[in-house]
């Protein structure tokens, strides 16, 4: 195997993991926002349900950004304090 093959294999693994992660996040958002916004499913997804779902999704993604930032800040503080990652999960 030459190094180019190794590089390609790594990219492929990273691509698959990223696709899997996005799918999981979308699944979670669908579950959450469907439950919250489509309380009585009608003949079609009406405008208010769509608006609610859009807001729910956007605020969920905002929340994820904040949680990631809090996590990163904590990991950084812990690394600076000389501790390992213990307790972070």
């Amino acid at each position: 195997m030459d190094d180019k093959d190794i590089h390609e294999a790594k990219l492929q693994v990273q691509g698959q993991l990223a696709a899997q992660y996005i799918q999981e996040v979308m699944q979670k958002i669908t579950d959450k926002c469907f439950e919250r916004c489509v309380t009585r499913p009608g003949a079609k997804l009406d405008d208010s349900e769509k608006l609610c779902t859009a807001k729910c999704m956007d605020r969920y993604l905002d929340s994820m950004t904040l949680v990631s930032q809090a996590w990163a800040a904590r990991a950084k503080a812990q690394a600076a304090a000389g501790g390992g990652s213990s307790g972070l999960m």
Partner: protein
Amino acid sequence: MDAEPSDAQARELQTFMETENQKAIIQQAISKLTETCFDKCVTKPGNKLDSSEANCIANCAGRYLDSSVFIVNRMMAKRQQQ
């Protein structure tokens, strides 16, 4: 093209997979924590995350991590007492 990776390449791939695996575990934990804090803090999603919601999310994530550390430490202390 040789199909078999060399020893050095095998080690490199092993390290790569361990790192990716660790990243996936962290992503999972962040995803789970997002869901927990979203449920606690964003009861009625609006046009933007307002400051009290944003505060609540940051506190929720921080206190969850504190709780996790607290429980790990307490469990270790308990085991030492035995």
